[in-house]
């Protein structure tokens, strides 16, 4: 019996202790007509070896292409030590640290994580994680709504330069609470959000403005001016940022006169493998004054009976297990192990290492973009100020272009046509520090061949 330690003797002894003739009898309170018949769609059990052979075959199938996809998840180098340590049984197989004295490892680590994340954002306090960047953005919206009690009808300004998958997740997660998410038009020349568009969308006013930085297209919104503008209008500013980029670009806490109010994003660039989209984690950082509106777990420092420093869950009165229907969120299980990995990752890189990685990504992306300039039928919209992603417009159907490059083992970009019809035939290309000069050259050559018809 895989994973069950009972010998026949054990079972008999235990049945006898329970006063039953068989295990089946222990289910005698369950009405017979409810009992399940044989399972039909679960296959027969496999040994670990056979399971791994099957999974290995599946995993191999999906390998072999060089990846230029981003759009919310990027391939970065993860130091080998990160997962070697995160996958230690003591981290990986521990529960949520409710028993603080038996969980100081996890608790201290999260306290360190909170410090790192708050510092990276140049803001006051961080929670211990939310599910992912998209759901974190939704939680930030709900948090902004809770913090702006004086407002009755809540409207959130959501630029179209926010990741479209984030926008739809936010709608899915906040709509039942009757919050209006107002889309702000995209300036297709600059690929950013203009003040005019914001003003148009704001109308009478709004609860909060979401500011993506870099935005979905890798461009830099004018966060300094827009933050001040939003604050003048009485809105809260929710920064949606790539945490890696914040090592080199101006962090939310320093936007405008007083900084953003809440910052969220996805921790994936900080030590999480692509892994088909998860597990990653959503981070959330805010001003001190908003901390009691924050969703999710928070770790605080305290002392034990002997005055020794220790760490424990705190502000639990915000959470569902105490406050139930009145909690700040329903979140319970979060993304602890992803945060564990990320904390180790950030410790290994430090501020300078992170900035170096960020700059290398930027430089590689810049280099590729420059090398595409002049390819027939290719245009590169928007300003040149960018982080590590950019849009490529083509005069051929982008789906065909992508397929042709796929055939050359290059995943060349994300097709933008469905999400952004206003951009015509366009794709989003991401380049990180992991791409070698040879791979960039191969990309350029392949795109040229495809666009110039020698494909």
């Amino acid at each position, binding site marked *: 019996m895989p994973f069950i330690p009972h010998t026949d003797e054990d079972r008999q002894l235990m049945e006898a202790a329970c006063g039953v003739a068989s295990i089946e009898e222990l289910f005698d309170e369950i009405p017979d007509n409810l009992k*399940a018949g044989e*399972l039909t769609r679960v296959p027969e059990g496999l040994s670990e070896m056979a399971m791994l052979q099957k999974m290995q075959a599946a995993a191999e199938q999906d390998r072999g292409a060089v990846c230029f996809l981003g759009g919310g998840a990027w391939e970065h180098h993860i130091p080998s030590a990160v997962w070697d340590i995160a996958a230690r049984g003591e981290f990986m197989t521990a529960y949520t640290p409710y028993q603080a004295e038996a969980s100081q490892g996890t608790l201290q680590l999260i306290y360190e994580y909170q410090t790192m994340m708050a510092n990276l954002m140049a803001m006051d306090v961080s929670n211990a994680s939310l599910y992912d960047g998209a759901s974190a953005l939704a939680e930030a919206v709900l948090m902004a709504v809770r913090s702006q009690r004086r407002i009755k009808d809540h409207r959130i300004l959501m630029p179209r330069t926010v990741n479209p998958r984030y926008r739809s997740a936010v709608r899915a997660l906040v709509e039942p609470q009757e919050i209006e998410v107002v889309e702000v038009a995209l300036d297709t020349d600059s690929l950013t959000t203009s003040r005019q568009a914001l003003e148009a969308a704001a109308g009478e006013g709004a609860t909060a403005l979401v500011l993506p930085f870099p935005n979905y297209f890798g461009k830099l919104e004018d966060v300094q001016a827009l933050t001040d503008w939003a604050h003048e209008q009485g809105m809260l500013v929710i920064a949606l940022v790539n945490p890696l980029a914040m090592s080199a670009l101006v962090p939310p806490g320093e936007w405008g006169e007083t900084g953003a109010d809440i910052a969220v994003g996805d921790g994936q660039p900080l030590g999480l493998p692509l892994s088909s*989209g998860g597990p990653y984690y959503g981070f959330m950082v805010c001003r001190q004054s908003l901390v009691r509106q924050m969703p999710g777990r928070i770790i605080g420092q305290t002392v034990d009976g002997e005055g020794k420093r220790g760490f424990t869950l705190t502000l639990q009165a915000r959470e569902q297990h105490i406050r139930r229907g009145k909690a700040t969120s329903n*979140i319970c299980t979060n993304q602890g192990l992803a945060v564990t990995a990320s904390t180790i990752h950030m410790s290994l890189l430090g501020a300078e290492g992170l900035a170096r990685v960020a700059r290398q990504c930027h430089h590689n992306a810049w280099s590729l973009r420059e090398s595409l300039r002049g390819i027939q039928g290719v245009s590169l919209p928007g300003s040149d100020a960018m982080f590590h992603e950019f849009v490529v417009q083509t005069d051929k159907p982008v789906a065909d272009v992508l397929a042709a490059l796929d055939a050359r083992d290059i995943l060349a970009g994300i097709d933008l046509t469905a999400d952004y019809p206003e951009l015509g035939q366009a794709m989003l290309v991401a380049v990180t520090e992991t791409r070698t000069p040879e791979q960039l050259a191969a990309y350029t050559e392949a795109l040229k061949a495809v666009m110039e018809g020698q494909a």
Partner: protein
Amino acid sequence: MSELIFERSKPGRQARAQRPGGEEAPLHQIPEGFLRQTPPAMPEASEMQVVRHYTNLSRKNFSIDTHFYPLGSCTMKYNPRGAHKAASLPGFLQRHPLAPPSRSQGVLSCLYHLQEIIADVTGMDGVSLAPMAGAQGEYAGIAMIRGYHLSRGDTGRNEVIVPVNAHGTNPATATMCGFKVVEIAVNKDGDVDLDALDAALGPKTAALMLTNPSTCGVFERNIREIADKVHAAGGLLYYDGANLNAILGKVRPGDMGFDVMHLNLHKTFATPHGGGGPGAGPVAFVERLRPFQPTPVVVKAEAGYRWADKRDLPDSIGNLSAFMGNAGILLRAYAYALMLGREGMVRVAEYATLNANYMAVKLKEAGFRLAYPNRRASHEFIVTLAPELKETGVSAMDFAKRLLDFGFHAPTTYFPLLVPECFLIEPTETESIDEIDGFVEAMKTIREEAFTQPDRVKTAPHTTPVQRLDDVKAARELNLKYVPADTAI
């Protein structure tokens, strides 16, 4: 030994092998105002210092790999290393979530089959794997119910009924979905109070949320009657699958009359808890709720597997995350399911139940009071330490802390709230009789201590890296991040 990584840091120290080599890359044409001026205060340590720091930190944790962890309602069972290895295969780790179908058939086939397996064990018609934990599964399910009622123009249903012993995520979820929460009582045998249910049901009822077996550790015997009542009132039934381990393959929520449910794969399907996550909380549902399921889901077509999204499912409640939820966790669950197989599923419920009932009997023999002595335990059961508190002044909390000294993680304490001084105990099927007997022995010893040297128990734990922590101070004098002593804030 408890220095923070920041306290081990020194300006200029670095794990140099972890940065891109060569010169620092230039920043091109980024205006000054967009650049960071002061680098963030981050750790500055060598690679070995980081490895040593976090390796030693890990050693301060209890975990399934090191300790028995009978945490009720949490299903802390063995997390097979094979499943971890399977999900960590390079082909899986390296796959970008938006890779085209040409580069996705491997992972899609796994997820498709996991959908099938979950439909089978739950007795439901469809499954979406998107939710990232139990609570998000609950959100998905309740949002689907909302969508269902609204799609029928049934707009007055703004209440969700929840028994008092429900997990906190149930009422919190109902609120997040815009519903009013109506709590109903549970009777002295741990079953739902049917009169209270009748009183609560009505035209405003959108749904009843229920765990079965409940967090009282007993099976709700009247479940069909309850289902009929709710359905008759026009409401739907939501099944909180956190306790599915108790009945896996034995009884199927679909057969009990539930309309939609989530599973906690990090419980029933043995994916690791990771010190608080990540998990995965697939929703399974009956046919009439299918149009509302969260996206994306895997469908099988002529050309192979592909993702179905809002375009295929226009009534979907939408996507709940940027991509496909916690795909890596889903792969672990699939690997686990493959190893268990159909026979193995049923065995999980059987041996989890055997262990719980055996342990309950043994604790009762040892003089402890069971909260529901006339009931079979499911995969978990409740002991109330109210008598001990009364006689010795030693509380459930004290027992819990003292257990740590014996090398046992404490059971769930003070939940569900309706039983005073309670321990909700769930041994799971992967523990042997030896560990269970050891736990019972420890409980006996502590009880003995409670009478003879209560202070020893009240001041426990004594062997952990820190002694009992001051939670009040933690909440009063909020200290949520490290600030160096010499920094003015």
